[in-house]
């Protein structure tokens, strides 16, 4: 099911919706699937191409997934109902944290969000920039592609996986991790470093371990295949 909320102004050859519109998603997207219950709120004009079925929010707007809680706010948004969403100058907030990226693409059918361009993600005790990111809303794992840089904690890695549910992180490839007087470098040829999220006296922190816990490896099994 999709809910649609738009601004009253009409633009070009699109359809003007004066009131917030609720759109029902295609029957193919079953209830409970990621990005299956989207509410789109235009920030200004929107246009709908009857031929292609593409809706364009030239002034941007907000898209919220009622099931996952993912909220997309972008300068421009283009989407095809039940198929995809493209956004530019986007900020996406979800269980994975807050992602800012030049370009965001959401494959609604697959439940996968990818982002590229100038890109950063922030969440408790974690701040990451990367060249590209892929978020699979089905298993709620964020896959950062390199070079990936963290400023909190301080690290660099070829690739980083984030468990959006637990906050645990896995650095992969040729990584470098710093904490206090420690500066850790990966073995020659690359390795894995687990950063386990937890709270100490209420403060969120990460503990590092080169010996990755099997549950975390299982958690990232799809991405590590």
């Amino acid at each position, binding site marked *: 099911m999709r809910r649609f909320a738009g601004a009253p102004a009409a633009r070009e050859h699109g359809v003007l919706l004066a009131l917030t519109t609720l759109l029902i998603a295609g029957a193919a997207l079953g209830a409970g699937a990621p990005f299956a219950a989207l509410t789109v709120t235009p920030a200004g004009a929107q246009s709908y191409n009857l031929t292609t079925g593409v809706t364009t929010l030239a002034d941007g707007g907000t898209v919220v997934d009622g099931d996952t809680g993912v909220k997309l706010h972008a300068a421009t948004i283009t989407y095809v109902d039940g198929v995809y969403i493209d956004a530019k100058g986007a900020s996406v907030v979800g269980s994975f944290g807050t992602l800012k990226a030049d370009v965001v693409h959401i494959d609604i059918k697959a439940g996968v969000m990818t982002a590229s361009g100038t890109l950063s993600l922030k969440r408790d005790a974690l701040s990451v920039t990367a060249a590209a990111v892929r978020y699979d809303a089905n298993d709620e794992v964020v896959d950062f592609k390199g070079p990936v840089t963290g400023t909190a904690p301080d690290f660099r890695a070829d690739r980083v996986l984030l468990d959006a549910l637990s906050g645990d992180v896995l650095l992969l490839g040729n990584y470098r991790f710093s*904490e*206090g*007087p*420690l*500066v*850790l*470098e*990966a*073995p*020659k*040829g690359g*390795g894995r470093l687990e950063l386990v999220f937890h709270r*100490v006296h209420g403060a969120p*922190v*990460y*503990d*590092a*371990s*080169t*010996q990755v816990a099997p549950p975390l490896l299982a958690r990232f099994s799809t991405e590590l295949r």
Partner: protein
Amino acid sequence: MARASCGRLSRLGLVLLALLGGALAQAQCTPGPSTSVLKLKGFATAYFGQLRTDTANDAAELYGGVCLQGEGTAWTLRAERVGLHGLTGALEVSADGPTLSFEGWQAHAATLSSTSRLLSLSGVSLSGHGVVGAADALTLDLTSGRLQLSALTLHGAAFYVSGSDATLDGDHLSVQAPSITSCHCTGSPLYHVDGVSAQVDLKAQRIVLNDGVLFFAGVPVPLASPLSVDASSLAKLTLPVSVSYVATDATTGTVGTGLGVLLTHLGLAPGLFAQLGATGLDPAYPLAGVALLDGHANGAAFSFGTASGGLHFELTSDHALAPWLDAGFDSRVLEDGMRDGLHESVLHARLHTPLRPVGGAGALTLFAAASTQQPSSGEIAGARLGAAASLRAATTAGAPWGRASVHLGANLSEYPDQGASQWGVEVEPGYALQVGPLSVHLGYLAQFTNGGSPFTTTLDRLEPVQRPSATLALAARPAPDWRLASNVAVQYDLVGNSNVDAGLNQLDASLSITRSLPGWQVTASGEAQLAGVISPNGVRDGTLEAGLTAMHDGLELGTRVRYRTAPTPTGLELVELSAAVPIHMPNLTVTPYLALNLAPTLAAGVLPAVSGHGLDVTLRTCCGVLKLGYRDEEGSWTVTTALVLPTAPAPSGSQAGAPCPASGPPAMLSVAAGPAPVCPTPDGTTGIMTGAALPP
């Protein structure tokens, strides 16, 4: 003061095993496929298998084989697991079973507890620079590079050294309260040398000990300071046992004390020693105890006690007032009979100068004395005032034409209490020549005097002497397994005095031939004393003697025959059979010796007489081989005390000591002969020996 504790030495045996065990856990100190790299800013770079941090405790742990490589200082530490604490504050490092490598040292420890500036290891076994050892604690100052050890024991190529503390500076180790021994024991060592401090030159394998005291069987004997100890100078350690034999001297009238054994230089306090023992241990002389207290300080020395049955007191004080002038004061009370009960005090001054152009020296002595003597003829007492001049000159030693020498002496003494005076002039030329195995010595002693002293010859009375003498000696090895030795000595007195008659007083000739056979050594010998034959006077000996001795691995069989022509009684004096048979036991060999004279049996059908007896005991200990023995052959005593030191097993990579012959018999050192190289024997020992070959 630390003591060499052999108990702790057992830890040394674990060193290699411990180091090996440490090595098994070592990580490569380079990045690798399974080695991560962690830089600890301002401290070290860590190479390790695994890491985990513990933010809640501000800590981290490296495990799976860890190698820490120090920043700035060349040290490396390996451990299976290393803990890091205080990551956001003062960094602390801990590890169990770490191995530290530093400037050639390898130290394996039970634990590491360190800061970023100081590595502290406890329960340390270490090796390097030719030594292995152990210490309770080791600290390495990462700023200065200084390494300190506490309660350490080091095992070098030839010795063990322990100490309370030590500091390593390059390849020099300064040890406090050191204790040194060469014993490789599981219990207390037989001897050890303790000191206040010592400097160990690890490169030269040499120890310089300050204020050292030798403890032999618990008996303290102060040593010269500083004392340099290495593989060749352990010989400077002398046993605190003195064996002497003082026979009555017929030429001077001095009464002998016979066989004496003394424990010498028993340290009581700095500069204060005791001598304990006895003289007259042989039946020919009266038994007497010796108990003397000796001391020295600032150029003065004293000895007080009892010796040879009488009061003994000596005080000497000598001072060099100038390079050419000495002065001193002596006082002595010698009631032991050797000096006719001398009581005396003497002030003296001595001017002396070397005379290099003539290869000699000159001296002038002035003295004033108050003396008393109590010979059998009655007491003599009075002042003595006198002067003595001497001049010695000699040609260069080693010249092919031999060496000529001369001693000139003159003295004058006044005895105001007796209104007497004595003068004496002495001229003693000599000539020595060595040509191959043949050596010749010619001498002449001329002493002119008026013999005017009221005192006895044991103090200062002179007597005329006109005595030519000559010696001819041959020592040759005509074949590799043959040795030949021969000696001819002649002495003739042109004038007689109270001790000797005029005439031929010595004409002796001897010859010995030794053949070395596999396992055996056979010696045939002959000796003739002809003075009593050519110029009999009722005292001079006239004998002919022949002997045969065979020795094999401690077994000694011998026979001698001697015929006497003078003085009476003449005839077959000695037909001797002798045997020394070693009895081997674990760590102990006892060799009794017995000689029987069959001459009385042959002449009168009586039982053979015991002409000689002896006993040698060889005790093999962890400190070496201790040899004690005596032999009485017709009243001629030989006493031997010897300690053959073991060479401590050299650690891997140790450096050799002083150069030693590639082969040959074990080097032994006679105390009287002074220091000499001490070399490993075929069974891995070095030798120190004291002993005395004692005339009858």
